[in-house]
């Protein structure tokens, strides 16, 4: 009743191809953006913005990157954390060595460098497929970690493991408070999300999906596998690179190679599986789930912390995390995005049965 397309006629091709063809979706989207841009910065604490929203947005962005590669183009990758590291280190080195470039430009160049590295490690995907490819992408993860840990040039010649990121200035405005960091992150994430949503609806996105569904068949109907797979790697790594740069600059405010380890690659993979493969919305839902779950477990555990030992909590956290993921995969293997689709179908008829 409230949510249906009845009565909304599309009178032009443009209206038919709009991102949100239904008015309710448009209003919902506007509401979400208004909440994110106006209400959260005005009415919530630094804790919510700094410790919940910023990591949620950054991991959501990273998850979009992996979703483009794995969910849309079908190339399973376990090296996403490595590409994020490339973005983080590239942005740091650019900001320190070439301070003339504005910080937004730095992020874009860092993303492009990550994209170039992603293309190099994506080359084997032309011959290697499936789980064989997944294991070879681990090479990217370990190799990139090793390079940044072993060559002091990347860390500015110092041997210290953790570096503070330089302060950021956007169009003459110094980014200092948590709110500034939140708004900067939000702006970048909004623009890139819109770009991703439009990319996957375009000819490029359809080519990715054709490759995912069956690459030999896609080749037969005239989609070039080389170009399509490598653009998927490039775009995915660009998103990973920007997310990695934001992770260092806006969230940790320091640069440390251990922040981009293999565990992070798995986390991003969990996000897109739990959120929904091949869905932009799912990337954010998955990121919210994975970011909030450990915080929730932690809060609950600390309520009982005087009764149980701390090392028991660590192990219990691992068990609950693993157990919930298995539970979730069994209950809804296609992710939260599918849940939302089902809800929408139900809403079209509600409250009448037919």
């Amino acid at each position, binding site marked *: 009743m409230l949510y249906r397309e009845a009565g909304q006629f599309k009178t032009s091709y443009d209206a038919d191809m709009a991102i949100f063809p239904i008015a309710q979706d448009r209003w919902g989207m506007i509401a979400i953006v208004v909440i994110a841009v106006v209400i959260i910065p005005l009415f919530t604490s630094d804790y919510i913005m700094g410790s919940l929203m910023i990591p949620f947005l950054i991991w959501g962005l990273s998850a979009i990157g992996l979703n483009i590669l794995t969910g849309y183009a079908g190339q399973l990758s376990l090296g996403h954390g490595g590409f994020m590291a490339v973005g983080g280190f590239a942005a740091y080195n650019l900001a320190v060595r070439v301070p003339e470039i504005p910080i937004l430009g730095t992020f874009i160049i860092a993303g492009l460098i990550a994209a170039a590295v992603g293309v190099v490690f994506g080359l084997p995907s032309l011959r*290697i497929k499936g789980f064989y490819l997944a294991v*070879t992408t681990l090479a990217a993860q370990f190799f990139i970690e090793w390079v940044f840990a072993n060559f002091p040039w990347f860390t500015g010649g110092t041997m210290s493991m953790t570096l503070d990121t330089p302060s950021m200035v956007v169009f003459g405005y110094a980014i200092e408070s948590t709110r500034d960091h939140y708004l900067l992150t939000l702006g970048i994430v909004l623009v890139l999300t819109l770009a991703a949503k439009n990319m996957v609806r375009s000819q490029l996105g359809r080519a990715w999906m054709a490759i995912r569904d069956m690459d*030999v068949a896609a080749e*037969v109907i005239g989609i070039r596998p080389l170009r399509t797979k490598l653009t998927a790697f490039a775009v995915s790594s660009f998103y990973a690179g920007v997310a990695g740069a934001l992770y260092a600059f806006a969230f940790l405010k320091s640069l440390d190679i251990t922040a981009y380890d293999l565990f992070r690659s798995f986390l991003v993979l969990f996000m897109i599986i739990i959120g929904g493969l091949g869905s932009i919305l799912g990337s954010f839902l998955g990121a919210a789930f994975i970011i909030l779950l450990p915080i929730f477990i932690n809060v609950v555990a600390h309520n009982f912390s005087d009764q149980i030992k701390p090392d028991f909590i660590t*192990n219990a956290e691992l*068990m609950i995390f693993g157990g919930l993921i298995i539970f979730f*995969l069994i209950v809804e*293997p296609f992710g939260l995005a599918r849940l939302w689709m089902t809800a929408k179908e139900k809403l079209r008829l509600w409250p009448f049965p037919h």
Partner: protein
Amino acid sequence: MLFALEVAISGLLSGIMYSLVALGFVLIFKASGVFNFAQGAMVLCAALTFVRLLELGVPFWIAAGITLIVMMVLAVVIERIVLRPLVNQPLIILFMATIGLNFFLEGLAQGVWDAQVHGLQLGIDDLPWEPLANSTGMLISIFDLSAALICGVLVASLGVFFHKGRIGRALRAVADDHQAAMAVGIPLQHIWAIVWAAAGIVALVAGALWGQRLGVQFSISLVALKALPVLILGGLNSISGVIVGGLLIGAGEKLAEVYLGPIIGGGIENWFAYLLAMVFLLFKPYGLFGEEIIERV
């Protein structure tokens, strides 16, 4: 030259140690098409249970027996709770479920026992083999040789197990085609439980041998990451492939560490094996002995 030979041989033998872990992956992949990421956690589980039982004063063979039973029960439980509800789901979902299982088992093993480092003595010394050392001057550890022998026996017996008898035939049928196997009346669930139990036994052997080498602790589950290149180099579904893969990776890694390491900086063992495997895969995309999938439109 003798030094290079010594390095190569010790590399070959340490490669066999990786093969032991990779073997667990192959067994499960072969029978169910599942890439079981939890193999490392299973190794940790088996090794921790075994070493803690030994420390409680349980005799060696009884402790091994109890651990075996624990691993078999674990296999049945995993099959019941994790795998059965996920039958017919895409393989990536099963893969993710095993990563979740990996976290769960790591927490379980360290929660039930503890997270300390435990020394483990199997009664095999990690010393150079004297006759060889005296005659040629090469220092090859007895422990490495025994591990290679054990691995060889294990691979041979699993090969026989897979080829002879009722269960072996059923296993191969399931590996070939799940649905066809079910259609002729092979109980898929039993077969999966058997295979996971076999992987548990392999995990115990690997855990015991690695446990003596590294000490039983959390990092033992990371050995699985070293076994992955061995696995893809040999081919995901080839039992004999893990031996060849292990030999190639082991020797390549040790030689690179000794001759290449000083030139480009230390610590290359984390990624060199992956690079080596990747180069091989560029020529043989399904590993050296893996089953090639013929794609048709």
